[in-house]
Every structure is written in structure tokens, then in C-alpha cells.
């Protein structure tokens, strides 16, 4: 023990002379234990892998790559990555906005259908769009060559950004739709009553109000695009981005420190954007949420506006339908566009043997991970909203890291951090959790990744739900004698159940369709659907890839359907009728 430490410890033992002031808000013991547990869990899930990447990246071998930052090759890769992010961010936001504007403000029939089709890309695996796109639009594509007789080269930036735009625009669409619906219609009415035409109102009122939304969507899509690995692998061609470069470093060059170095280059802009966005959202939430809208939106009926908007919407929807039609049909033919004979061979392959293995394992691991993510997520949101005063921002930030960190980075981090057992002397303190030599065939690592990726969604929905519960409700329970854990169990949890289940749905969908972090830690024993799909696509077995995608989409959709039924009013009525029946059977009096 050093001298200073000794003095410090002595000082700690001296009782304070003055009676200690009462603390402002003491966490009770149980809450403190929970807090410590959560911090440890998050450290294991995100911080340790991140630290491991930094350690590897700044090792001698990693520094070689980091040192090449100014070399033309590396600069080009970084430039490519940022360019891709910018194009996809701008394009996806624009498409998302037009779709949302049409949905919220333009008069037409079939809005519900439009909504469902627009959300399809969210629940589908990353390759569905890319593979279908190649089948439809590449050199021998059904449409490009079959219909128009063209032989375009789709590999590279244009094709890649098109596919990414279609994969990610639903995120922008949902954001913008929420904002448009929150805009107080009386603003439009005020503008109109002051003599502005609808077009003027759109430019001078609606668009400026939505600027923060545009910015937020752009940043979100930017990060999604630069973090994506699956599509650049399939469609990138010579257009190398950081994620594919890191993948090559590991899978081709077996250079882990090098891969870590590329991962750091990817991590920096992603984290920066995440921080900017957090700051932005915290500054602008006053303007975006104006409370209950007063009045009603009058929908656009003028053909001058309707025709161009709806034509665009029609094109987007047709493309989505074409893409997913291709996926659906492609599973049932030998090689769509080349050999269109009907066959069940693809499904026979994936539903028997290796394929069914992958389907079962993936579903099982996602099913295991989802409730874990939910429990951690709800606990974190409870701590953030209700219990922590000072550290609440930091806690929220930690939990959100799982999404802020690109999947590629997270995957490499796991590969580095958990591939080896933690051995001190002769004792194994901790077994390897990821990779071929890991316990349980590396499934622990995969579940951890699923949990990490799902946690942010779970926290977001939890925080939003808990914030809607007035603190007085908690206090009422406390005042009636419930301690904080009882209050959480009997009041908070039941009240956020619906939000919890919705969060779970997204978490499950995300686990089922995620690839970039998983690809670095899958093992021969443990087969994950998305990495199987990648394998099929890379070896040109598009039929099998399509069949996998279809099964995956159907699986995810059924779970979403089931959960939305469980949280629907209809189900609630049935359930509460059942409860009511019990209540009146309770003994009355003596």
C-alpha cells in the first residue's frame, strides 16, 4: 500500500466531526446492487470488446495499419465509406420523407397497405434486397437485360447505394411520419389564414419545422450505411469500404490487429455521428413534440401535387414489391432468370439438414437473447428515468452503445475479447465465449451479441414508456407501503408491458436478421441463418439464399403478428374479461 493510499484509508476511518448532512436522494441497497450488476453486464457486453479493439488496434501491428491513414489506398477506402454514407443518408432520407409526407398529408386509398409494404425491408435479412437486385437489374438481370436489353454493371457505388437506400429508408420513413403526425395542424391553418398557399406553407412552415428530423434521419442512415457489411460484400465489387476491408483483414489476411485498426477508423465517425445526434435530439425535442395536436390535417387533393408525389410513391412501392416478389419466387425455381423451372430443392435443402439446423439454432438463440435484452433494458430504463440523478445520461449512453458501435466493429471486438479463455496462472477464470474453441460451441458469444444489439431498442422503448408514467403514480404506491422493487414489479412493469413487448419484437427481428457482428464469431458447430445466406450468395446459390430469406421473413413476421395480437386491444379485452370473472368471485365480506 502506498503512503497516499494509506493516508486516504485512514482518513476514511475517522468519523466526521460534524453530524453528516442528510443526503439528497440515497439509493436504497437493493437499487445499488442492481446498478452495479447492470454496469458489470454492460461492461462485459460492450466496453470490454471495445477496449480489446483499441488494445489490438494500437498494438505494433495495428499501428502499421493506423499509420497508413494518409496512404492513398487507405484514404480512398475512408473516402468511399463516407461517400456511401452521405449518398445513402441523403437519398434514404428523401425517399423516406416523400413516403411519409404522402402517408400523412396526401389523399389516396390504400394507406395501410403502403405502410406495411414500406416497412417490409425492416424485417428482412440484409441480403434479400441485394440478391433480388442483382437478379433483377444486373448484367443478365430479368429487367435490365430481359426488358430493356441493357447490361449495366451494378457492382460498386451506384448499385450499392440504391440497395442500401431501399434497405434503410423505412427508418427515415418512420421517423418522419412520427414527426409529421406530431406537427400541430393549427400551424398549417394559421399559415393558410395568413394567406399562404399550400405550397408556400409546405416550404415556409412544414419543411423548416422538420429540419431537425431531416438531420436526425440523415445521420441515422449515414451510420447504418457505413456500418453495413453484408451489402458491400455482395455488391461492392472494387468499391472497398472500411467494413469490407476489416472483414478481408480477418478472413483473408488473418491480421486481427489490422482489422482492429480498420474497425477503429470506422468507429470514430460512427460514434461522432451518434454523439451529434444525441445532442441534437436533446436540443430539439421541444420543437418536435408539441403535445396533443389540435385540429385536423386537411389532406392534399390538388392533382398538381398528388400526381408527382403518388407517381414517386408508386415507383418505390412497385420496386419493393418486385424485390420481395423475386425473393418469394426465387426460392421455388432453380436459378431465377436463368433456369426458371419450378423446384422444391431449395426448400428441401434448407428445411432438412444444415439449413434446418441453422433455422432452429438462430431462432433458439434469438428467443433466448430477446427476454434477456428486455429485462436488462427495462431495468436500465427504470434506473435512468427514476433512480439515477447524476449518472442517468451516462447510463443511457452506455446502453445505447450497442447500436452506436457498427456491427463490424462489435463483431471484431467480440472475436478479440472472447476468443480465448481468461487464464491466470494455472486457473481458468473464464472460459472462451466466442469462436470455435469456446464453450457451448460459441453460442454464448452469439447470444451476447444479440443482447447487445437489442438492448438499445429495449432501453429506448422502456425509457419512453416509463417517462409517460407520472412519478406521482410511483409515489402513490410508495405512500401505500410499497418499496422500490415492489413498485417496479406491481406498477411500472405492468404499465410498460405493451411497450416492452413492442421493444421485444424489434429486438427479436434484429437478432434474427443481423449479420455483421455475427459473421466474425460464428463457428462450424453453430450455424446462423444470415451467415448461411451470405455463404449461398457468395457461392452463387441464389435459390437457396431466396428460400432462406423467405423463411426468415415469415418467421419474423409471425412473431411480430403474434406479439401485436398479444398487445392488441382485442386481446386485452378478452384477458381483462377473464380477470374480471375472477374478481367477482372473490369472497365478499365474511
Amino acid at each position, binding site marked *: 500500500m502506498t503512503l497516499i493510499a494509506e493516508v486516504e484509508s485512514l482518513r476514511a476511518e475517522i468519523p466526521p466531526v460534524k453530524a453528516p448532512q442528510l*443526503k439528497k436522494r440515497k439509493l436504497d441497497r437493493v437499487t445499488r446492487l442492481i446498478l452495479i450488476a447492470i454496469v458489470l453486464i454492460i461492461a462485459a457486453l460492450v466496453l470490454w470488446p471495445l477496449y480489446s479493439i483499441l488494445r489490438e488496434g494500437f498494438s505494433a501491428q495495428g499501428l502499421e495499419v493506423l499509420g497508413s491513414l494518409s496512404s492513398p489506398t487507405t484514404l480512398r477506402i475512408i473516402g468511399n465509406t463516407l461517400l456511401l454514407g452521405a449518398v445513402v443518408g441523403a437519398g434514404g432520407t428523401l425517399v423516406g420523407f416523400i413516403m411519409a409526407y404522402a402517408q400523412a398529408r396526401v389523399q389516396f386509398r390504400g394507406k395501410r397497405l403502403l405502410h406495411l409494404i414500406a416497412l417490409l425491408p425492416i424485417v428482412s435479412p440484409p441480403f434479400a434486397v441485394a440478391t433480388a437486385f442483382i437478379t433483377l437489374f444486373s448484367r443478365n438481370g430479368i429487367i435490365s437485360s430481359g426488358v430493356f436489353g441493357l447490361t449495366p454493371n451494378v457492382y460498386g457505388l451506384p448499385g450499392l447505394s440504391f440497395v442500401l437506400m431501399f434497405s434503410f429508408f423505412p427508418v427515415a420513413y418512420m421517423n418522419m411520419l412520427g414527426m409529421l403526425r406530431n406537427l400541430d395542424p393549427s400551424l398549417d391553418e394559421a399559415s393558410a389564414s395568413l394567406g399562404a398557399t399550400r405550397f408556400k406553407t409546405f416550404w415556409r412552415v412544414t419543411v423548416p419545422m422538420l429540419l431537425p428530423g431531416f438531420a436526425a434521419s440523415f445521420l441515422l442512415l449515414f451510420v447504418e450505411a457505413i456500418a453495413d457489411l453484408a451489402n458491400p460484400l455482395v455488391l461492392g465489387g472494387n468499391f472497398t469500404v472500411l467494413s469490407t476491408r476489416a472483414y478481408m483483414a480477418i478472413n483473408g489476411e488473418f491480421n486481427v490487429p489490422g482489422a482492429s485498426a480498420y474497425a477503429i477508423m470506422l468507429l470514430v465517425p460512427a460514434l461522432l455521428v451518434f454523439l451529434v445526434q444525441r445532442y441534437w435530439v436533446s436540443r430539439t425535442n421541444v420543437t418536435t413534440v408539441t403535445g396533443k395536436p389540435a385540429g385536423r390535417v386537411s389532406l392534399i387533393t390538388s392533382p398538381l401535387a398528388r400526381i408527382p408525389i403518388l407517381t414517386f410513391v408508386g415507383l418505390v412501392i412497385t420496386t419493393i414489391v418486385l424485390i420481395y416478389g423475386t425473393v418469394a419466387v426465387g426460392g421455388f425455381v432453380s436459378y431465377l432468370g436463368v433456369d426458371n423451372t419450378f423446384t422444391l430443392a431449395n426448400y428441401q435443402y434448407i428445411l432438412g439438414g444444415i439449413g434446418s439446423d441453422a433455422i432452429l439454432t438462430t431462432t433458439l438463440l434469438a428467443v433466448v437473447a430477446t427476454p434477456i435484452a428486455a429485462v436488462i433494458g427495462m431495468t436500465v430504463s427504470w434506473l435512468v428515468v427514476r433512480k439515477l440523478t447524476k449518472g442517468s445520461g451516462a447510463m443511457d449512453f452506455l446502453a445505447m452503445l450497442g447500436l452506436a458501435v457498427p456491427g463490424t466493429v462489435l463483431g471484431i471486438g467480440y472475436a478479440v475479447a472472447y476468443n480465448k479463455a481468461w487464464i491466470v496462472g494455472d486457473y481458468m477464470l473464464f472460459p472462451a465465449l466466442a469462436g470455435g474453441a469456446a464453450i457451448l460451441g460459441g453460442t454464448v458469444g452469439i447470444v451476447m451479441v444479440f443482447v447487445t444489439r437489442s438492448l438499445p431498442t429495449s432501453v429506448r422503448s422502456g425509457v419512453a414508456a416509463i417517462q409517460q408514467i407520472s412519478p*406521482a*403514480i410511483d*409515489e402513490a404506491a*410508495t*405512500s*401505500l407501503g*410499497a418499496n422500490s422493487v415492489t413498485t417496479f414489479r*406491481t406498477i411500472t412493469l405492468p404499465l410498460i408491458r405493451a411497450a416492452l413487448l413492442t421493444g421485444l419484437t424489434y429486438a427479436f427481428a434484429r437478432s434474427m436478421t443481423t449479420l455483421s457482428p455475427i459473421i466474425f464469431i460464428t463457428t462450424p458447430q453453430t450455424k446462423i441463418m444470415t451467415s448461411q445466406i451470405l455463404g449461398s450468395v457468395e457461392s452463387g446459390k441464389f435459390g437457396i439464399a431466396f428460400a432462406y430469406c423467405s423463411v426468415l421473413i415469415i418467421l419474423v413476421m409471425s412473431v411480430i403478428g403474434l406479439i401485436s395480437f398479444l398487445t392488441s386491444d382485442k386481446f386485452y379485452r378478452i384477458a*381483462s374479461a377473464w380477470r374480471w370473472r375472477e374478481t367477482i368471485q372473490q369472497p365478499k365480506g365474511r
Partner: protein
Amino acid sequence: MTTAEMTREAAVAEVTTGKLVIDGLRKVYEGAQSALPAVDSFSLTIEAGEFITLLGPSGCGKTTTLRMIAGFEHPNEGSIKLDGEDMIALSPDRRPMAMVFQGYALFPHMTVRDNVAYGLRIKKLSKAQIAEDVDYTLESMDLAHLANRSPNQLSGGQQQRVALARAMVMRPKVLLFDEPLSNLDAKLRVQMRAEILRLQRQLGITSIYVTHDQDEAMMLSDRIVVMRNGHIEQVAKPSTIYLKPASSFVADFIGRANFLPASVLTARGSKALVRCLAREFEVDAHPDALSASVQLLLVRPEAMNVSATTSTTVEGDTGRILSAVFYGPVVEYEVETDAGNLVVEVAAPDVEAILSAGDFVQIQFDASKTWLLPAEGR
């Protein structure tokens, strides 16, 4: 009458528990804009079964005080003892108190019955006991027919009754009310006020009630605590607060007040001979009034009267009417005088005889209904 009901009757008879002794309470919010404490040197002894109202303008510290008693805020200094037992050390869920909240804070996912039963279930009472207590409370508050409704199917008044029932069923030693009626419309507020008073008297539970509505405070309270800037300004019966306020702040806050400049001619005990509006009167005086350099005479509008005069100058006890408003039971005049503009309320006015703006009037008041106060820097 069941045995349970008999024990309840017995409970009404002897109110022995629920004496609350608060001493030197102080609360400073960390990071608050002003360095001033939200509550400072708040000391008060509340007798068992007493109904106390904390009254004051917003920001005066009344809610903070209530929340410290409940345990939701921790005081920086001071003690709270309930029947001799220290409360500060107890977390809010262990304090034998129940709170009724401003926004009702009903649990939206539970029926009315479940809401009311919640605290008893936490207490782990037997099922039969819970059912009995809940039924009795629902019955006595006319909520039995709503027992299986969910809170969002109830009107505001009904929700408030459930909130009250949920607290009452606990038989707490102290009931805390945080502006419980402020979300109701005026008529319902008056009804609920009566209901709260009836229940409180029937059960004899010590009650602390926060409000900024003086009518509520006047009607409900055994004693009113008027607060200002975190301090107690006065603690007294409603009539004392109204007739003999401790300061011009209290006088102004409770009811409406005219403050007339008055000069003390001679003082005798608690009485003083003063000159005011060019006349001399003997009036009751606040103990501090005589030693103060400047005094004000409090005259409530209803203690004044005006009568037509032939005089045409504003001086002495003659004034000119600036406005006259007929409210039905009263007519209210605003009168310009040497001593500033005064409000005069004449009850049961004869409609024919109502004076109009511009009329010159002589001002009279009943000296026995006035109160001499030291002038504050107001």
C-alpha cells in the same frame, strides 16, 4: 352492526395517535437557481386528529414541506416525529401515512377495487380482511357500483373519490393531501371539500392539506399555516387568520384587504387610538404594531360602507367612486380617496340605491372590525 363496524366506531371516539412534531425543517435544493432554501426553520406541532392546511402562493414551500413529511424529499436539517417516533430515518413506504395526489395518481392498469386494495395487499392482510375493508370503504364513499371499472372510465370527481378511498382504507396515522381538488371544476370542488371533511371528522385521522385555495383552507382547517418564501408566516384558526393576521402579507393573501395609513395617537394594552381618514378611532392592534415606525390599518371591504354626500372634493373621509359592479349578493365599489383606492363591498344592496362612478361618497367603517398592523416594506 358487525364487529368491524363497531371497532370503527370506537376508533372515532378516541383519537390518540397521529401527533406530529416537526422541528426546524430545512430544505435546500441542490443546483437550484436561488441560494434561498425552499423551506427553512419550519416548526409545528400538529395534534392527533387535527386538520392542518398549508396555504400560500406557489413556490412558498408548502408542497416541499408536505413531501418531506411524506418522505419523498429529504430535509437538510430538522426532525419529524410521529407519536414520538423519528420519521426521517424511515423510507416513505414505511411511514404510517398515506397521500392523496393532485393528479389522483390512480394505477391505470388496475380496477377501482384493485386500486383500493393495493396498499392492503402490500401489507399482506388476509384475503377476507382485504375484501371486507375494501367493500366497507367503497360503500362508505359511494363507489361500490364502480368497483370493477378501470380508472379511465371514471369522471374526475369519481377518480378523486377513488384516490381518497385508496388512502383512507389504509387507516394511516396521517393523511397527506397535495392540492387534491385543483383539477376539479368549482362545483365539484365544494362537494368534495365537504366529503373530505366528513370523512376526516368521522375517522379522526390527522390530516395535512396543501392548497392555494383560501376557501378550501377556511372551510377544512382546524388551523391554517400560511407560508411565504419557505417560512411560516402565521399559524392560527381560520377566523384569527382572517381577522387578526400576523402580517400585511397574510392579510392580503387571505381574503381582500384595504390598508389605510394610520397614525397612532395613544396606545393602551392591545388597543390603540389611531387617526385615519381624518377621524379618530380605537382599534385592536398587533403586538408589533405599536413599536413599528409606520402602521397600517387593515379594513376588510365588507367592514366598510359608503353613503352619498354633497361634498365634491376627495379628502379626509370623502372619496369618489371609480367603478361600481353589481355581483348579486354584493355590490362592489372602487373608491378613490386620499389614502389610495379602496375596495368597498356592500351586502344585499338595494338595486335602486346603487351609486355610480363619479359620485362622491362618505366612507364609514366599523372600527371594531379593523386591525392595526406594522407596515412591512411592501
